[in-house]
């Protein structure tokens, strides 16, 4: 019973396509996130949702759109994929936002490796 699960694990697609990555958490957490790990291995936050409301929208292209149908799910839709979108995308959740307190660490999924050809 995985706490934060995201699918698919691998995604290979061509430039210009539209794709989605799904994320679900069964921890009862209030806040969910999408992170991108780039080629230099830095983890950078893309979006954060608290109780289905977007509370952070960092500077990402508007081709990326998060969708949260309920508190336990946060999906990531990507339109018109570009080569530079190739990366590992991590979903995460925390009990309450923000995610930095001792009692509210981030729980990550296992990542989705997106390769755009």
């Amino acid at each position, binding site marked *: 019973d995985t706490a934060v699960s995201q699918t698919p694990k691998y995604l290979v697609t061509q430039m210009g396509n539209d794709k989605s990555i799904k994320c679900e958490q069964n921890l009862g957490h209030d806040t969910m996130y999408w992170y991108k790990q780039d080629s230099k291995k830095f983890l950078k936050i893309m979006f954060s949702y608290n109780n289905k409301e977007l509370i952070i929208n960092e500077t990402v292209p508007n081709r990326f759109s998060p969708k949260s149908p309920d508190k336990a799910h946060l999906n990531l839709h990507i339109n018109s994929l570009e080569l530079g979108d190739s990366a590992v995308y991590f979903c995460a959740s925390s009990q309450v936002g923000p995610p930095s307190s001792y009692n509210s660490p*981030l729980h*990550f999924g296992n990542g989705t490796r997106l390769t755009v050809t």
Partner: protein
Amino acid sequence: DQQVKQNSPSLSVQEGRISILNCDYTNSMFDYFLWYKKYPAEGPTFLISISSIKDKNEDGRFTVFLNKSAKHLSLHIVPSQPGDSAVYFCAASHLHYSNYQLIWGAGTKLIIKP
């Protein structure tokens, strides 16, 4: 603009010895620091944290030290075990600077030799 730096991409340590992972930061506004551990093909998992009001926090074999004047923190693992082989990420945050969102280092790959 790397505000959190882990200058050692990798570190190799003999099993049973002490592992010391280092992290430097540039923004003096950071007031909370965390370490996460990541195995291949998995997401990072929370390991230990420290608030800027402290200079040391200990949890079993893991101890984090914070030197605010040097803007430096370190993670000590004693004794090192084979299961400690992983990538370790340092992260920092501050309410007013980053709305408590985490700013991450690039990670240090720790290899524990048997």
